[in-house]
């Protein structure tokens, strides 16, 4: 077994264990922390694959910005504990159905792809060099890039509209 494979296996076990612990934890703050652990383990996997930019962006955006806000909201609302009752009863059967569908899809993909050529497990030159990555983002992938930015802008505007809408109710 090569050193790279051992490192990958350790990271994979950490990532999966953290993801499982996130789902099973009864305290939402711990769930958030396990999710951060999962993000960081995956970022290190990106590093071992030779994509440092993606790894650092993963930590900055997910662990550094999004999860901080999650923790902020959990702490602000005091929502550490789940409520005893399931608030949305129709959710569970739908979730089970969708989960089974996903597993079936995974098994099908695994069975049909056996023997076909493996995907390359090392990143191309563009992933290591921030300049090449930027050029790719603004030329070849500029349309998805712009669509993503519009999506984020819509979300930001939506947040502003939602907070402004509260003003009328306060006056009553």
């Amino acid at each position, binding site marked *: 077994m090569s050193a790279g494979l051992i490192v990958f296996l350790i990271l994979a076990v950490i990532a999966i264990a953290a993801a499982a612990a996130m789902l099973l934890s009864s305290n939402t703050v711990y769930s958030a922390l396990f999710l951060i652990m999962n993000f960081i383990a995956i970022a290190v996997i990106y590093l071992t694959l030779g994509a440092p930019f993606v790894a650092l962006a993963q930590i900055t955006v997910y662990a550094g910005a999004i999860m901080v806000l999650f923790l902020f909201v959990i702490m602000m609302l005091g929502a550490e504990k789940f409520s005893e009752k399931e608030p949305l009863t129709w959710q569970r059967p739908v979730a089970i159905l969708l989960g089974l569908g996903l597993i079936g899809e995974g098994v099908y993909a695994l069975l049909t792809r056996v023997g076909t050529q493996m995907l390359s497990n090392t990143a191309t030159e563009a992933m290591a060099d*921030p300049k090449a990555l930027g050029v790719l983002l603004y030329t070849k992938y500029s349309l998805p890039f712009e669509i993503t930015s519009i999506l984020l802008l819509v979300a930001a505007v939506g947040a502003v509209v939602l907070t402004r809408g509260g003003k009328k109710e306060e006056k009553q």
Partner: protein
Amino acid sequence: MNAALIWEWIIKSVIVLLVMTAGFAYVTWYERKVLARMQARIGPNRAGWAGLLQPIADAVKLIFKEELVPDKADKVIFILAPVITVIPALIITAVVPWGPTVHLFGRDIALSVANINLGALYILTVTSISVYGITLAGWSSNNKYATLGGLRATAQMISYELALGMAMLGPILLAGSMSLTDIVNAQQHLWYIVLQPVGALIYMVATIAEINRAPFDMPEAEQELTAGYHVEYSGMKFALFFMAEYIKMIAISMIGASLFLGGFQGPFLSTFPWLGPIYLFIKVVVLLFGLIWIRATFPRIRYDRLMSFGWKILFPLSVVNLMVTAVVVRLVGG
């Protein structure tokens, strides 16, 4: 990769960690001395000559203090939080070069731990995760003052991170590289503070807010929050929070010196490469003096003003600064 190279990295990492922790001890002494002089006092002068042994006396006192853990606290996170706070502070300067390549023991040794091509992004990454320790400390203490302090810290650090990132992009654009070694080398003839005065100003303001120093020390406002997020901590765990704050002071001074003041650059550097760390040390001491001076001069600003200043003045200013820099770099062909 041979054994000598691994040893070189280990030794350089250990040196950085030791310098940062020893630096923490003496920055506390430096701050107390400077603050005392500004307030017409003498400051620590009992332990050792000019109070130079004061940090050691403080450390001994803190080690022997009783460690208290509140009964209703979340014990695991309460103990982990100081550690999570210190680690980003210790690792953030890994990408800052302290000198050019020197010849030692028959080997060419670059005076930096990691000269990676994403140095500036690494700094932003570490900054973005350094908020967790404070947030978790505030939450796990199960104390309303601590929780409020933690929440304030989170909101403040997220808000000022954007302006900080934008300010750091100025030197990156001018040097055409995210590696801090390249940025320092590009400042051989002209410091970037001349080309980026607005960027340097935004960097200073945003970093003071990032490390929760006066006048932006709302998370630990004594009068309204008793002490903020570390109110329940005692002994060495309390000392770790202070260690993180003072190491971050050194770190932002080092990074600021590298981005805007030419880092290790100075006269006669090509003939005497060992002058590099000395030049960097002098610049860091000057910047630290500035940080202490600001603390001694400005009163703490109100929290809503702090947030609106960050979002409505600092962030737009940094965006305009970035756009102007980008256009000029493109036109001049930098």
